[in-house]
């Protein structure tokens, strides 16, 4: 439609207005997505910094780099920052915010001002949490287990609790906005069965955010009340039950894992379909498996408590239900694989992340089955096996999905191409570094190294050194994209409207899109992923 020169001159959401006010008071979902991108990247590097300190401490068996108390704070704050300030908002608040209206043909989310409010809530929460970090930190573990958090810890539990409480509202508002937008703002012809799978997965995510997050909010609020006003709801010396806290906490915090992984699956479906140039295999199954994961996700929380003293019968039920979550997850993995079968695959950067995602998520998912098994869980509970398992899901799954998605939609977001060679190098570094970091932890955990200890017996050192070495490679793999994304905003090749020849509605508007997304209201007359009707781009600068 346009030559490079024309594209550069066209008015879009980035060059429409300039100045700090036009960003801080914007209600444009695309600008808010960029605000989120900048803020969560900041927190990602803070969380990553804590992670590197943890890995450095574990380089040697003795506790020598930091003291035990500091180490407790490091892993607690690493967990809280990464989960509540990076992973939960990552894909939904950045890519979801940017793409949900574009993909369904809407001008904006249903409640643009609430969308901006959610970013401000996130920033308030982030500021409080930063204040908590610099004035002493928190050492309860990311889980705030009582009675340690309510009665014994002498760190800033109240502040951290309030910060996460507020961040929760930011997450609720994002979810609420998505659900209403997907229900009420679809363009003419965009029926439910024509929705991209990205939308289906975000719909499922939003349901979890809406129904799960308030429970975490009330739980943390009760912890804060207990510390601040001496209430005794979780206090065992007054007959309160710490197990009740664990039930309430995991009622949100297990589904929270699906808040992190479902959006990564959302990205996966788009990327795999595009770079195999095929309609996604089993569209209905992939769509419904997202909903199934959201529903089952709410019924498995007590598998975190198998050794905490719940009854054997309830443990049995939760164990079986936890196995069941594997079914919709496996449906997705098999369907992506089936989509690739006889597809015309190109190994672009997003696709490399997609391959990485499938492998690592499968690994993480299968080791999840070990943990759902009552007997095995008793053996590996609270060991590095658990750490490795959930990092395979959250880093190997969610972060790979996030990075893959960022590369895939970067041309749309910035109007520029990222350097493909560097992109693929970074993807390989992330994959290699990730496996080197976390695979040894499966072995360590299986041999019995407990989590949350700052020293360990010398026979564990070799594997720990490997893990620390891997984390360094991983860090380089994460810094690289940040550098070349920034570089590409100025020097990157101007992106065409649809550089990948992708099928989604978001590729039918210009890159970057105009403020109201489409010059004319789109009308959808085609099915999702109609790749047989779309010619492959003449020049994709990668070999096939």
């Amino acid at each position, binding site marked *: 439609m346009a030559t490079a020169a024309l594209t550069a001159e066209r008015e879009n959401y980035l060059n429409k207005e300039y100045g700090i006010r036009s960003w801080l008071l914007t209600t444009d979902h695309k600008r808010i997505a960029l605000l989120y991108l900048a803020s969560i990247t900041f927190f990602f590097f803070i969380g990553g910094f804590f992670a590197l300190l943890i890995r450095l401490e574990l380089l040697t068996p003795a506790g020598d780099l930091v003291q035990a108390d500091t180490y407790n704070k490091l892993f607690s704050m690493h967990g809280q920052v990464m989960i509540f300030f990076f992973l939960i908002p990552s894909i939904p608040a950045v890519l979801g915010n940017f793409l949900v209206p574009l993909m369904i043909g809407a001008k904006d989310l249903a409640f643009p001002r609430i969308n901006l409010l959610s970013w401000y809530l996130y920033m308030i929460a982030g500021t409080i949490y930063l204040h908590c970090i610099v004035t002493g930190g928190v050492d309860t573990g990311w889980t705030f287990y009582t009675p340690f958090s309510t009665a014994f810890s002498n760190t800033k539990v109240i502040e951290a609790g309030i910060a996460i409480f507020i961040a929760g509202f930011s997450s609720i508002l994002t979810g609420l906005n998505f659900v*209403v937008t997907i229900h009420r703002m679809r363009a003419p012809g965009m029926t439910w069965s024509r929705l991209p799978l990205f939308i289906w997965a975000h719909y499922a995510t939003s349901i979890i955010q809406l129904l799960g997050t308030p429970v975490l909010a009330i739980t943390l609020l009760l912890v804060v009340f207990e510390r601040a006003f001496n209430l005794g709801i979780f206090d065992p010396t*007054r007959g309160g039950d710490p197990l009740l806290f664990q039930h309430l906490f995991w009622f949100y915090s297990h589904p929270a894992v699906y808040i992190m992984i479902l959006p990564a699956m959302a990205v996966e479906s788009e990327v795999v379909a595009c770079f195999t140039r095929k309609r996604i295999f089993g569209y209905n199954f992939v769509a419904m498996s997202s909903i199934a994961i959201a529903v089952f996700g709410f019924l498995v929380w007590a598998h975190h408590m198998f050794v905490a003293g719940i009854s054997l019968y309830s443990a049995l039920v939760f164990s079986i239900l936890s196995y069941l979550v594997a079914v919709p997850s496996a449906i997705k993995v098999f369907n992506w694989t089936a989509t690739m079968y006889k597809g015309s695959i190109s190994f672009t950067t997003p696709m490399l992340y997609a391959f990485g995602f499938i492998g690592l998520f499968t690994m993480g998912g299968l080791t999840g089955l070990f943990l759902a098994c009552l007997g095995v869980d008793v053996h590996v509970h609270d060991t590095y096996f658990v750490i490795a398992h959930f990092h395979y899901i959250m880093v190997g799954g969610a972060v790979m999905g996030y990075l893959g998605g960022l590369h895939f939609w970067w041309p749309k977001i910035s109007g520029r191409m990222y350097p493909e060679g560097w992109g693929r190098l970074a993807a390989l570094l992330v994959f290699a570094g990730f496996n080197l970091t976390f695979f040894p932890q499966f072995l360590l955990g299986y041999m019995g190294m407990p989590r949350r200890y700052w020293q360990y017996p010398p026979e564990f050192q070799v594997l720990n050194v490997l893990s620390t070495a891997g984390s360094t490679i991983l860090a380089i793999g994460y810094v690289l994209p940040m550098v070349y994304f920034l570089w590409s905003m100025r020097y990157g090749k101007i992106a065409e409207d649809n550089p990948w020849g992708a099928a989604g509605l978001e590729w039918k508007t210009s890159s970057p899109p105009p403020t109201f997304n489409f010059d004319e209201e789109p009308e959808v007359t085609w099915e999702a992923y109609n790749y047989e009707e779309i010619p492959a781009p003449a020049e994709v600068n990668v070999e096939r």
Partner: protein
Amino acid sequence: MLSDSPVAVEQHGPELLHHFVDAEQQRDAATLGMWLFLATEIMFFGGMFCAYLIYRYWYYNEFAAGSRSLDIYLGTINTAVLICSSLTVALGVRAAQMGKRKLLVILLLLTIVFGFAFLGIKGVEWYDKYKEHHIPGPSFNVDDLVRDYPQIHIDPRHEQIYFSLYFAMTGLHALHMIIGVGLFVFLTYYAWKGRYTPKYYTPVEMGGLYWHFVDIVWIYLFPLLYLIDRHR
């Protein structure tokens, strides 16, 4: 570029935000959004109701004694006050639909008055609890309850759980009332300015939904907290 499209000029009235096609879509979105928000509120209070359920099952005697120490008259009056406020809200939404501006303002003001009345009475009740040393913490003392109910065994530690829940639940309910009163102050201001018409009264309706929700929470809290084992 967009603004000179004839469709946008024709259909977009002052209340209609730019990204909606028509007023109906905007209203539908607001209604769905509000109901979803109320669903999150149910989950929010749900956590406390869950804790209540378990501890009441475990520590029934203490819950019964604590419940009987509450002032049933003030509690009943407060329930009546809230039900009246719900009536004024419902009538207010009706007034907005019919475009009766003065009536709407009066009904909204009445709702605010009822809201303050509820909070005032709640404050009196809390102050009584403070005087009786029934607030959980170091000065917590329930010797009076042990004396009053010699026939049942009361463990003071478990009694604290009842009062912890009492204050957490009524406290968060009161916080929602305060937010509600704040919302209604805004609604009254804009109603007085004549912003709501039979064509556009969504904010009044949404405010009403919120107010009814907070009412319903109290309708559950009142029997759960005040009416345990009263017949004895």
